């Protein structure tokens, strides 16, 4: 219907500062869809509300991604069969799953859902391709996604007893005949109340006893079942949760225990604080954490209510410029704002696979953190000189499409440029700053890009074809390399 692309203008319109902040924190990169959606719904509150009910957003691109990874559709016994026959390895499943995850971040219109799925996947963290959990990893991801904007209590109920978790943290061999404390401990420390809550070793043992009975036939088909004969029967007590636990089927006790932990004030504090680390700053005030934990508790662990309390708090808007993109966020953001989109993953050189190694080269590989505590959420972890060097290099690689990926959709250069010429170099830098960073170019940036190109920023460019491929790459890479390019 002939709508004009935003980039056709010499000075493309940008979002308001608050819209930019909200979209930047709650997306993997502000592309044309995000700008258009934000505009069409009339403001950031409306945008966030709409995004927080992802099922109402048609997402053809995001939905199609699953079909690129047929391996991930395998039932657990089929996946194990492939490994046993040495057709595939657990690593292959993990690699596909990492690529699948990044592809969804890249193309999905449901960006808030993607961001929250990433957040919870990093809290209830299970690596990709891990031997004891890999056949169930995609199924676990579906659980996280289903509850990512729902109730934490319900997510916890399904995630903790999921076969992937049972395999990963050894609950699969935790029985009344021999307790394995691994999951019982991490449930308290990482997923709910946290260490400051002050549980002791007796609590840990009780926690593990409650979780007995969830069997997975690890390294043998990976069938999952509940075995009442394995369940510890008898009184249990964890941090004020007490239960006679008299039945062989302990699942109702597990559900009550997980509800108790999810609703615990210490869990509310811990979840609120971790959300702040992701979305506000490395050192959130007690005030915002308290406001969020109150919202969490009064809404019975509702994630959307907790997020609303966060964005409404004055600390949120005041936190602009305080969060640095992780290497994964960085690479995905650059690809999105540059207009690069994967369209498949069949080839080893597919763009959806290259992004796995691109983020790895900056220092973070999707689902490759080896420990159950997830990647650090603090920006300070990712604000180091060496990371800067690596990001600067990958930004030019992306701007120039130098890895030469297959299965990529990438706009023609002329379709990214203004339609009105002549322009000065400074105007073109401003144009790209608006498109890639969502803000006008500062004088420092205009002169900086001009300096990198060894030109004056008043250099006149008569037509689009006066801008060489090389010049365009250098210009865009240098814009992305500005400090603002690393902030979200």
């Amino acid at each position, binding site marked *: 219907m002939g709508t004009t692309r935003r980039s056709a203008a010499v000075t493309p319109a940008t979002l308001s500062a608050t819209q930019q902040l909200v979209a930047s924190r709650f997306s993997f990169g502000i592309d044309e869809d995000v700008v258009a959606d934000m505009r069409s719904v009339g403001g950031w509150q409306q945008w966030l509300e709409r995004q927080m009910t992802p099922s109402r957003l048609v997402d053809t691109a995001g939905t199609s991604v699953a079909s690129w990874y047929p391996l991930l559709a395998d039932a657990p016994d089929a996946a194990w069969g492939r490994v046993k026959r040495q057709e595939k390895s657990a690593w292959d499943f993990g690699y596909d799953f990492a690529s699948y995850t990044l592809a969804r971040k890249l193309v999905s219109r449901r960006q808030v859902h993607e961001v929250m799925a990433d957040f919870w996947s990093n809290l209830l963290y299970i*690596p990709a391709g891990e031997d004891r959990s890999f056949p169930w990893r995609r199924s676990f991801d579906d659980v996280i996604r289903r509850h990512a904007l729902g109730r934490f209590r319900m997510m916890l109920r399904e995630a903790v007893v999921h076969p992937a978790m049972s395999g990963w943290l050894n609950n699969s061999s935790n029985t009344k005949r021999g307790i394995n404390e691994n999951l019982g401990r991490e449930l308290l420390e990482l997923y709910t109340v946290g260490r400051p809550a002050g549980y002791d070793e007796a609590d840990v043992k009780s926690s593990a006893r409650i979780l007995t009975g969830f069997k997975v036939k690890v390294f043998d088909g990976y069938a999952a079942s509940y075995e009442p004969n394995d369940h510890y029967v008898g009184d249990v007590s964890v941090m004020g949760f007490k239960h006679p636990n008299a039945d062989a089927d302990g699942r109702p006790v597990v559900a009550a225990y997980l509800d108790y932990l999810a609703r615990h004030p210490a869990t509310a504090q811990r979840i609120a604080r971790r959300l702040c680390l992701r979305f506000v700053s490395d050192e959130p005030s007690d005030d915002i954490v308290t406001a969020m934990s109150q919202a969490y508790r009064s809404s019975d662990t509702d994630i959307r209510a907790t997020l609303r309390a966060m964005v409404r708090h004055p600390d949120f808007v005041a936190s602009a410029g305080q969060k640095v993109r992780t290497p994964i966020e960085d690479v995905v953001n650059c690809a999105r704002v540059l207009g690069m989109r994967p369209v498949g993953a069949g080839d080893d050189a597919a763009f959806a696979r290259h992004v796995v190694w691109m983020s790895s*080269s*900056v220092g973070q590989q999707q689902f490759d953190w080896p420990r159950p505590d997830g990647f650090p959420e603090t920006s300070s972890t*990712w604000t*180091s000189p060496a990371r*800067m060097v690596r990001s600067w290099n990958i930004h030019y690689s992306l701007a120039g499409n130098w890895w030469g990926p297959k299965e990529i959709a990438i706009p023609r250069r002329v379709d990214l440029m203004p339609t009105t010429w002549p322009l000065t170099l400074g105007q073109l830098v401003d144009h790209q700053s608006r498109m890639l960073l969502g803000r006008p170019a500062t004088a420092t*940036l205009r002169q900086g890009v001009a*300096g990198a190109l*060894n030109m004056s920023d008043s250099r006149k460019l008569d037509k689009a074809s006066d801008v060489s491929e090389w010049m365009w790459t250098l210009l865009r890479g240098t814009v992305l390399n500005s400090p603002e390019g690393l902030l979200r």
Partner: protein
Amino acid sequence: MTTPRKGSGPVDDCGCDDYGVSRRSLLKAAGLAAMAGVTTSMFGDVLTSTVFGATEGNILVVVSLRGGADGLSMIVPHAESGYYSARPNTAIARDRLLKADSTFGLHPAFAPLEGMWAAGRVAGLQAVGLPVPNRSHFEAMELLEDADPGSSARIGWINRMIAGLASSPDVFDGIQIGSTVTPTSLVGPAPSLATGGFDDLLLPFTEDAKLAPQVSATLRSQYTAHGGPLGDAGINALALATRAGDVAGAVSAGPPSGVTYPEYSSLGKALGTTAGLIRAKVGVKAVAVDAGGWDHHVDLKQRVNDTIGDLAACLAAFFTDLGPEAGRVTVVTLSEFGRRLTENGSRGVDHGYGNAVLALGAGVAGGKYYSRWPTLGTGSQVDGDLAVTTDYRSVLMEILRARFPSLDLSTVFPGVTAAPLGFMR
């Protein structure tokens, strides 16, 4: 552009065991070594102030056994009936132990280090650990590596060590090789670096003599104008990249012929890079290396055999690799906690307390065991676990005192009085 290499088979250890550098990523993506990421932290303009420092000084290599190593499997207290009764499926029989004395013996998988042990270059320490039990991986690692419970400042002990050895420490004084996320031990005001290698820290267009300075000047002006932690990181990155070029050129690509690290071992790769760095004489003083895979909640017998075997083979290769430089290098292994005495329902062991430590190389009075052995008697146990009779900081102080005599240990480990075991010359 290299394309990712496909994996060959699911031979990796249980991922839950990998609390350090992921073996998986190395194992399966060996072709991508050049893409390994890096992080650094550094403050101020110290980077520009030094070229190569003291090139012949002593070096400490700290090998972190992530996940909580089972010290009772490493240095087996074979004279204790309690050990055998608590571990009906996983205890190591007396007659399989290496270098046994009347109390202890080494796990048979330590065979690659037998020669060094016989030559008096390896000492085994037992019942070492944190002063107070902590069975959380993450808290215990944090406490172990911060090592200053009296201070709320998050500064690691290696960072304090580096700061104590030079008025203006260089970024290559204290390095983590392997994982890209800076460990707590290195965090602090002295500059530090966490990297897989050195040839991937160069600025864009380094090879273009005309363009590189232009791009560099652009970055400098923008990051200077921006200020704050991100601005500082950018400015320091420019300096780091300049220095990295020198180091990358000096560190040889691989070990000399005749030195073989275990295939697909991330520890082996990191130690190989460490040896190259030391041989290049660029002035490193402390290196932190992760050896992941020690969280043996299941199947202790097989898994600890594999992890000890990897550790022993890597350390043996490392000292061979060092050649004449070995006279400057002391290695110590540390782990956040030991395991429970009693095996669990999965023929594994859960999180415990007292642990074993190995000290190897320069200055070590090796070939024997050192311990104020508390015994495994029920009256001596702490919550069912081996007690700690030697604070791990005392072990580190004993090493530092011998190898870095100019260091003021009261700044590295404030408030700790060393109780030496006598394992250093």
